[in-house]
């Protein structure tokens, strides 16, 4: 068991880096939670976990596609990042359409007086009794950055877990049988498990809602990143041992 851990120490470091990236990425995603669903807070109207999972798992799938054709790590990470960025962008643009044309409110932030990117005034357009609504430009850009980081993190974890399995003597290539591929299945499930743990920890840190990197809450990220660092080390040890055991059966 200890041999397996020592042999895979590099992959474990990658898994921990991936977990930390996911944790950091959540702070960029403009999550509005239930208030945003009623257009009473800036951001996308659903919870952190759903958003992070949606974007991150799309990143995982797109990284998996790339792994079919190459073993080049930067390409795989780029594929994961682009997949997650597309997913989060689509979510945000459709959400904006709904807020603008459906609800009929102006995308505006209540946390800053002017949008740091467009320099447009914000406070004039915030409806009374709300904490902003819709997705102003800065939140959109922040969300895309978050998707990028989350996608890289998810792809890094998945790639590392597959490499741990390859070290243990398993094949990662596609199989044509109905039972599927053991290594791909188990690596994907561990990646999803680690992803959820690292998506929930920062969502507790930000208290469920955040507007993006211009939000004062964003400065709290070191706490969540520290927590995720410790939690991911545990998950990485457990995951590497479980996948190494696959080689023996």
């Amino acid at each position, binding site marked *: 068991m200890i041999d397996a851990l020592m042999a895979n120490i590099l992959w474990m470091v990658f898994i921990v880096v991936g977990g930390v990236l996911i944790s950091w990425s959540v702070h960029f995603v403009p999550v509005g939670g239930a208030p945003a669903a009623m257009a009473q807070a800036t951001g996308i109207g659903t919870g952190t976990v759903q958003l992070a999972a949606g974007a991150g798992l799309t990143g995982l799938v797109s990284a998996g596609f790339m792994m079919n054709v190459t073993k080049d790590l930067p390409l795989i990470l780029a594929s994961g990042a682009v997949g997650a960025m597309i997913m989060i962008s689509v979510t945000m643009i459709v959400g904006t359409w709904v807020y603008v044309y459906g609800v009929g409110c102006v995308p505006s932030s209540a946390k800053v007086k002017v949008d740091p990117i467009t320099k447009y005034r914000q406070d004039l357009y915030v409806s009374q009794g709300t904490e902003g609504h819709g997705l102003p430009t800065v939140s959109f850009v922040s969300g895309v950055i978050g998707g990028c980081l989350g996608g890289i993190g998810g792809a890094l974890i998945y790639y590392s877990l597959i490499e741990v399995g390859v070290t243990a003597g398993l094949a990662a290539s596609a199989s044509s049988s109905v*039972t599927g591929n053991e290594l791909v299945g188990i690596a994907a499930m561990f990646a999803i498990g680690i992803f959820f743990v690292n998506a929930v920890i920062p969502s507790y840190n930000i208290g469920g809602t955040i507007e993006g990197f211009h939000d004062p809450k964003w400065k709290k990220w070191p706490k969540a990143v520290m*927590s995720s660092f410790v939690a991911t080390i545990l998950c990485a040890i457990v995951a590497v041992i479980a996948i190494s055991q696959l080689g023996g059966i």
Partner: protein
Amino acid sequence: MSAGGAGGGATAAYPQQTIMAIGAVGGLAGIYLGHFMPPAFSFFGGLGAICAIVWGADAVRRVASYGLGTGVPSIGMIALGMGIVAALFGLSVGGIAGPIVSFIAAAIIGAVIGVLANKVIGMGIPIMEQAMVEIAGAGTLAIIGLSVVIAGTFNYADVVQNVVANGYIALIFIIGGMGILHPFNANLGPDEKQDRTLMLAVEKAAIAVVITGFASSLHEGLMAAGLNIFVGLVIWAFAFMKYYELVKRDAFSVVGTGLLPSAEELE
């Protein structure tokens, strides 16, 4: 704005020790029975999963009553995230003691995350550490229990072959998580009652057994799958009727709305 919970401990009719005992002992007993009995009796794993899911839902109820700041679903997802990592680890190294090793690994991961949430992030929920241990343990037992329904055993090689490799594990992940997070999420509010919430957990867990019963037909054959589905359906019907009764008990009044008015009546 805190979603769910008024910020205080939850009142309970059944003491938490009783529910913990049902969840941990019932969960493990069901898993071992499902493992050692012939494949036709794999529904015992499902009964274990029901016990574990009820326990998880009760733990979610207690911790989410304090107001997590983010919706209740997040804690169900972290339960299954920790659970899946711990479950596969325990089965891979534990052999015959697999579920117990998984359970202990889950408790350790849960305790660490609970301490981090309170000490580093500063959530300030007094029962966070204990609740995280319970939720992680319940999530683990639910995953192993539902895996036993599909594979008929918790032997690592068989679980990997029959549950993980073909992707049924993703199904277990979501329906198990739904059983743990949904009951409190659906019932929360000032009039939330423990027995109603837990009855909804039984009902959701029974749906999980029915769905895994369908999935088990691939490996265990139609007879065993039929028995799994039948057991799940019986429990579901009982729990649903009971839940509806409790809803009627707690509601101010239950009235029928009648059919939609026709076009003439609207004019």
